[in-house]
């Protein structure tokens, strides 16, 4: 027996649809898929193109040789690679302990109703969105020129550390917040001090989240070119040999090669981009691995 028909306001005569999903709905859904697809397709095209363009230069020479401004035949990116690695290590050194310490303060010690703490929070949220070139100006004005250090590993890593500090803080705060309050209560009720509770209960549980967040923050840092350009980082043909050493980095080198007109330099830029992307891929994979590994509870 067929279902009663809707006579007045019903759009359909029966409860069953004929012809499947109606056209406007289908159109809408495909529109949405298209929106998502644009990003994905562009990503694929970009990656493919970069590898394709850089293919001629993706060889051992890229890693063993120094860059050159005159002879692209023999140019490599060694100083840039080493510079990026040095930067990564020192940026991590400055920003990760500071970020974690700030996150611990904000989550465990700060009374959210006090003005100073709200100011700190707003500052962090704002800094997270300040354009990276402004950090370059900061580095230029204070570290490089006022203190007179010039474009060294020290100034570069300090500038990048400040740039990604808000990211580390935000990620660490989330990790700390995920630790259940009952754990803290249980610890304090046994006569542990606040710091003992933080160090022995909260931090061990929060470490995986903090590690993931820190790695992601670092991967953003090593992809930045604008702040380094402002610091005066430029063409360098040697590997860094200390904190006060000049340096170059992959993003800067890519930029310089991109702006050269010869085809070979463009190929070098693409090849160096591939190296940078591979490095980022490795870092992100580690972060994801850590995140998945610690999903299962103790």
């Amino acid at each position, binding site marked *: 027996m067929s279902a009663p028909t809707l006579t007045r306001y019903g759009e359909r005569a029966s409860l069953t649809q004929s012809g499947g999903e109606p056209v*406007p*709905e289908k159109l809408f*859904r495909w529109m*949405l898929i*298209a*929106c*998502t697809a*644009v*990003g*994905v397709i562009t*990503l694929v*095209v*970009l990656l493919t*193109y*970069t590898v394709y*363009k850089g293919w001629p230069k993706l060889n051992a020479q890229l890693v063993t040789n120094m860059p050159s401004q005159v002879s692209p035949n023999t140019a490599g990116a060694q100083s840039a690679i080493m510079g990026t690695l040095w930067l990564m290590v020192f940026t991590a050194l400055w920003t990760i302990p*500071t970020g974690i*310490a*700030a996150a611990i*303060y904000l989550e465990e*010690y*700060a009374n959210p109703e006090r003005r100073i703490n709200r100011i*700190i929070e707003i*500052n962090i*949220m*704002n*800094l997270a*969105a*300040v*354009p*990276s*070139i*402004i950090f*370059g*100006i*900061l580095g230029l*004005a204070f570290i490089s020129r006022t203190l007179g250090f010039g474009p060294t590993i020290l100034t570069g890593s300090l500038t990048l550390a400040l740039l990604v*500090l808000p990211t580390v*803080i935000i990620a660490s705060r989330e990790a700390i917040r995920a630790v259940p309050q009952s754990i803290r209560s249980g610890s304090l009720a046994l006569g542990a*001090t606040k*710091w003992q509770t933080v160090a022995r209960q909260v931090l061990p549980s929060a470490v995986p989240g903090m590690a993931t967040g820190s790695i992601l923050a670092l991967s*953003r840092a090593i*992809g930045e*070119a*604008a702040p380094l*350009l*402002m610091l*005066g980082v*430029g063409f360098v043909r040697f590997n860094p040999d200390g904190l006060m050493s000049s340096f170059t980095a992959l*993003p800067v080198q*890519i*930029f310089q090669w*991109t702006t050269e007109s010869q085809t070979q330099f*463009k190929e070098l830029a693409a090849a160096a*981009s591939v190296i*940078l*992307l591979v490095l*980022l891929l490795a870092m*992100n994979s580690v972060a*994801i691995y850590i995140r998945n590994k610690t999903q299962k509870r103790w």
Partner: protein
Amino acid sequence: MTQLIDKRAAAAGTSGFLRQQRPRHGERAIQVALLAAALVAVATTVAIVIALLIPTLEFFSVVSPVEFLTGTTWTPLFEPPSFGVVPLVVGTLVITVIASVVALPLGLGAAIYLSEYAPERVRRSLKPTLEVLAGIPTVVYGFFALTFITPVIQAIVPGDGLPSVFNALSAGLVMGVMIIPTVASLSEDAMAAVPNTLRQGAFALGSNKRQVSTRVVVPAALSGIAAAFILGISRAIGETMIVTIAAGLQPNLTLNPLKFMETMTAFIASTGQGDVPTGSIEYKTVFAVGMLLFIITFVMNMASIRLVRKYREVYE
């Protein structure tokens, strides 16, 4: 049997045994150290403001703010120099508009798809893919814009001499794609915060998914989506490498996206790179333009933060 602990553990005497056995200096010191770390963020903001403000004030003692803000010629290195920042601002604006036209609808569309339509499997592989898009260094995007997109545009768009090798369209399009993940992710957070009961109520009335998404979820998540848009636009304004590489390093007061133009950020980057003597007026232009950039993005960021707070309050 139970003398397992030494005498120090049990209190000595009933009077005053609750008083502190040992002063806990360590706790205090740790708290101070942690506060110092948190204050680094405040110190950074203060440092940025100082670093920008002082040279800017010095700049404005030589150049009138009116000329700066309304002048349409930007030739700080000419003799006589002209310091009208409008061409840079217009350059930023044109490229930002192009990027927004790309990023805002596509980002919102992707967010709606991920939040309301996509099956779990698809979602789990799409979200990380979009995150990868966000993780690509902007210098690589710039390279892509200059060496791939620009020739494509030049092939597609007919014209004499246009589009030039440096053009705003190429930079704007690529920048738009770069910003899609930002818009998508923040919008999706906002939509995820909409309680399921609202959706179910609409479904129970016979709505289809399109209607629920567009008439219930999006309006409910509106402040979060607005925050996402504002943040996306702010990122576009502040982005440096794509425009430096692909849009041009000569200021050009035009609205034609097929022409070259220089943005505020590109100007700062190219001037700061060069060996500009400290203390000269050219040096100070970097800070004046930087100050303008900072203020614009600061205002937008504050608005975005407010909106995020608003939607979080409503639902949490």
